[in-house]
C-alpha cells in the first residue's frame, strides 16, 4: 500500500476538512481524505456540515449602518 492509499483515522480527516474544502491541501492529502470519506459516513456528515457552516458565514447579512454614523462619515467626505 502506498502513502497515498493509506487510510487515515477520523481525527486526521476531520482536522483537514475545511482546508480540503478550501483546496488548501496537497493532492496527496486530498486523495487520503477522499479515501477516508469513501467509507466513513460520520465524516461525510462532518464534511456536509462544514459546507453548511461555510455557506452560513458567507450568507451572513451585512451589518446595517446607523443613519447618524452614515451621515457623520459622509460629512467627513464632504470636508476632505
Amino acid at each position, binding site marked *: 500500500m502506498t502513502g497515498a492509499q493509506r487510510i487515515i483515522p477520523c481525527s486526521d480527516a476531520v482536522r483537514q476538512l475545511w482546508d480540503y474544502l478550501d483546496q488548501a491541501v496537497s493532492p496527496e492529502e486530498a486523495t487520503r481524505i477522499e479515501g477516508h470519506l469513501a467509507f466513513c459516513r460520520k465524516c461525510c456528515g462532518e464534511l456536509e456540515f462544514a459546507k*453548511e457552516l461555510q455557506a452560513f458565514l458567507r450568507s*451572513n447579512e*451585512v451589518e446595517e449602518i446607523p443613519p447618524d454614523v452614515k451621515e457623520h*462619515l459622509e460629512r*467627513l467626505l464632504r470636508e476632505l
Partner: protein
Amino acid sequence: MADIPQSPASKVAFEALAREQIPRLYSLARRLTDTGAEDLVQECLLRAYRSFDTLAEPEAGGAWLQSIMVNAFRDRLRKESRAVKEVAVEDVDDFSLYRTIAEEDPFPYSDTLHVDFLRAFGKEDVRAVLMRLPDIYRAPLVLRYMEGFATKEIARLLDAPLGTILARLHRGRKLFEREMWTYAEENGLLSQEATR
C-alpha cells in the same frame, strides 16, 4: 482635513467611490472590531484619500478600500500593543460542533438538526460569537469566510507568514464552533422555539 490635497476631479471620484462603499466598510469594521467601528472607517477613508492617486483600476476600488481598512485595523492592534495569546491547538482540536449537536440532540423532533442549529443564529448572535474570539483568530476568519479574501492575501494584509495565518484559521474555526455551542447554550438558542 487630509494633508495631501487631491485635484477637484479626483476628489469628486473619491467621494463617489467612498460614499458607495461606506456601508460595506462599516459592516467589515463591525466584524473586525468590538468597539470603534466608526473610527476605523474614518481612518480608512482618510488613508485612502491620501493615496487615491495610487489606485490604478477604479473598478477595484471596493477591494482597495477594504485592504486599507484591514491595514488600519492591523496597525491599531499593534498600537494598542495587545498581547498576542495563541490558543493551544490541543485545547480546541478535539471539539466537533457537528458531533456535539448530534450527541446533545437539542431539537429532538427535527429531521434537519444541524441546519436548524445554524438557523437559530441571527445576525447579532453571529457577531456576538465572533467577538468572543481573540482578534488574531477573528480577523482571518472574517476575512476568509465572510469577506472571501484568499489566504495569501490575508497573510499579506495582516503582515504574517502564510503558515501562521493557516494555523490561526484552523484554530479560529475550532474556537468559533466551540463558542457557537456555548453561546447557544447560554442564550436559549437550544430550544425548538428558537428555530421557528
